């Protein structure tokens, strides 16, 4: 009974934080003065601008997906399966852009290439988003490689060299992971707001944000995000039908041996040089540009004076958000893994849908539901930001917990039950300690995503409570380039330093988390 009540309470909160805002937003857009009206959507099909936005959004997402998958998969194989030197360092290097708000790298490249249009439009957005989302197929390839039974590759090695085994055995086996990575990149690119906004490229999220923030035209803003939600739903349906059962759990390989490592032999040196050069170009160069631009003129002192409070709030919200996400993720993961309530599949689908939904949609939804005199107690405080984080990012921690809990033999809890332990005691003394690596990994990922969030926070933050990504974004309109660069460097440090320290002390290296 305790179990059902607690899990039911978590599900109710999730519905209140995520589903109801989206439904409320949609409902308000189709009712005018209490009457059903589709006026806000009238222009959607007729206006050529809408078709331009759709074409731009789809072209950007498709190009970014294609480039990241085509580059990230071989990169993941090189870093996850070969004897390339410095694999762990290089993997961390390529992950860095994913840890910070996407527009930070756009700012840097804009500084580097100049304001004369060399970094603009579709090609500019594609390049920036490619550099940011490249780690997604890279990491998923590395993780899925660890799930391949080494025997399957060894059986191939008995009669074929590594290139054939990779092409015919390994890659087909990890294909669901690669496709999942492509789907994720497509959805993230489709909902990305800050980079296209900075580089003046018209896509749906920018249109929606402009309608909302500049004109406060709620219905038009909602109508502009409906195509985003529609495409998201279609793609998630495809994922549910074709991929979910194959990527649901990142199962460890059936045998305890390590995956066979490919000896690169004479190719080792030039491949190392190539990967290092790519890492330098994509990650190091933009950071160096920001650091050099921000040096001198008291830029850092000015940055801390103008955004010190935002930095503190970013840390506080990220820590609070990550901690609550870990709790939510644990219970929703437990629910999905054990199927303790009949609605487990719906809960799983809801978390994934909310994660895939662009932050702009969730932000507008939260405003639609919570911005009323009766709920101002919540909406007027920082709690609304945390609610937004819980709505959007619970899927991440939940999926990690599903994977982690699946690896704990059911007999562990059953032995405790036979010994007389109730559900809460079993949870606290058996399952939580055994799942601690997953909990820590979930917390770290929650921290990263809360810290870098721009879209939701920008829409819902109460006056004077903005976070650092939002502060930088608003200062970009009138701040000096040196000041903006200094703020970007501080933002990168705020994301990378704590994660790096935690990574080092927690023993999460060697990919022990996703085993």
């Amino acid at each position: 009974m305790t179990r059902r009540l607690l899990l039911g309470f978590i599900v109710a909160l999730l519905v209140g934080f995520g589903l109801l805002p989206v439904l409320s937003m949609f409902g308000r857009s189709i009712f005018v003065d209490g009457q059903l009206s589709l006026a806000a959507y009238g222009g959607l099909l007729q206006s050529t601008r809408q078709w331009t936005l759709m074409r731009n959004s789809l072209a950007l997402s498709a190009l970014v997906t294609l480039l990241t998958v085509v580059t990230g998969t071989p990169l993941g194989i090189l870093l996850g399966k070969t004897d390339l030197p410095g694999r762990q360092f290089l993997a961390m290097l390529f992950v860095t852009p994913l840890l910070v708000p996407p527009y930070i790298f756009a700012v840097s490249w804009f500084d580097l290439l100049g304001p004369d249009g060399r970094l603009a439009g579709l090609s500019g957005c594609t390049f920036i988003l490619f550099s940011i989302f490249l780690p997604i197929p890279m990491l998923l390839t590395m993780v899925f490689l660890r799930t391949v039974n080494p025997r399957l590759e060894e059986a191939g090695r008995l009669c074929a060299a590594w290139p054939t085994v990779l092409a015919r055995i390994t890659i087909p086996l990890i294909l669901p992971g690669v496709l999942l990575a492509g789907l994720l990149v497509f959805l993230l690119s489709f909902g990305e707001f800050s980079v296209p906004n900075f580089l003046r490229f018209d896509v749906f999220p920018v249109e929606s944000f402009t309608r909302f923030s500049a004109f406060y035209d709620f219905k038009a803003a909602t109508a502009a995000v409906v195509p985003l939600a529609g495409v998201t739903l279609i793609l998630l349906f495809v994922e549910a039908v074709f991929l979910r059962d194959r990527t649901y759990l990142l199962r460890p390989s059936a045998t305890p041996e390590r995956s066979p490592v490919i000896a690169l032999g004479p190719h080792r040196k030039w491949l190392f040089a190539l990967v290092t050069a790519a890492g330098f170009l994509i990650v190091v160069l933009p950071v160096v540009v920001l650091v050099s631009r921000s040096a001198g003129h008291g830029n850092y002192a000015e940055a801390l004076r103008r955004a010190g409070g935002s930095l503190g709030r970013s840390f506080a919200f990220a820590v609070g958000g990550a901690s609550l996400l870990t709790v939510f993720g644990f219970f929703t993961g437990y629910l999905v893994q054990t199927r303790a309530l009949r609605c487990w599949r719906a809960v799983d689908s809801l978390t994934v849908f909310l994660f895939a939904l662009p932050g702009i949609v969730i932000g507008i939804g939260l405003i639609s539901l919570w911005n009323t005199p009766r709920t101002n107690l919540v909406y007027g405080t920082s709690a609304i930001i945390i609610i937004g984080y819980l709505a959007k990012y619970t899927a991440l921690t939940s999926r990690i917990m599903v994977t982690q809990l699946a690896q704990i033999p059911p007999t562990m809890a059953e032995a405790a039950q036979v010994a007389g332990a109730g559900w809460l005691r079993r949870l606290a003394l058996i399952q939580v300690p055994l799942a601690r690596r997953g909990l820590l990994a979930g917390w770290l990922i929650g921290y990263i995503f809360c810290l870098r969030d721009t879209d939701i926070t920008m829409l819902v933050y109460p006056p004077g409570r903005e976070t650092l990504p939002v502060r930088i974004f608003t200062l970009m309109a009138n701040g000096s380039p040196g000041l903006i660069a200094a703020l970007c460097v501080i933002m990168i440090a705020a994301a990378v330093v704590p994660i790096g320290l935690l990574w080092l002390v927690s023993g999460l290296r060697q990919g022990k988390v996703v085993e």
Partner: protein
Amino acid sequence: MRIVDLVSVSVSFGKTKALDDISLQIDTGERIVILGPSGCGKTTILRLLAGFITPDSGSVSLGGELVACDRRLLKPPEQRDLGLVFQDLALWPHLTVGGNIEFGLKARGLPRPERKRLLDEALTLVGLRDYAGRKPAALSGGQQQRVALARALVLTPGLLLLDEPLSSLDLELNIRLRHEILRLHEKLGFTLVHVTHDRDEAFALGTRVVVVARGRIERDGSVADIRKYYQTGAPRAE
């Protein structure tokens, strides 16, 4: 002719010594069974022969050619002319039965008619002619074993390594497949190295049995010798 020659081979995994200075010679056409408890090092011997690991010290020769010595891999697995049936069979789940068996033929670049002929022969050999288009998951345990055997034999290797492939089967099926392996050995004439922890299986399949314990060869002799060895009180394996 000597097909396998292990000389003073030692292999360690971290601080654990899996093989401790073992030497083993096998002649062409022999049926040899490596017998021992779990963790004694018998699978390590097979992986050494297959080329998945290299010896920390000592040498491995196949067919008179040095293929690995002192941490150096001189000949990779795909060039060693051997077949291996894994304990968990390792059938590729995304390929059909035909695709699994044909993989090695394609890797060697054989033309399509030749591949088809060899595939048909292999399927006939193991009695699975009608199953070429099925995925491994759609087969019974015994049928999967036979697919794994066909995949290992289709390239007509000189040396067939079997890593406890029968251990998960019930007794009736286990016995039936022992006969199948003996029939194939007689028909194709390969050298068989079979690994097991089951004495009955060892005595049924081998003409020579090598008892391994704690990474060392405890005894090496004919089936009759090893039977006697156990009857007269062999030291208990830990």
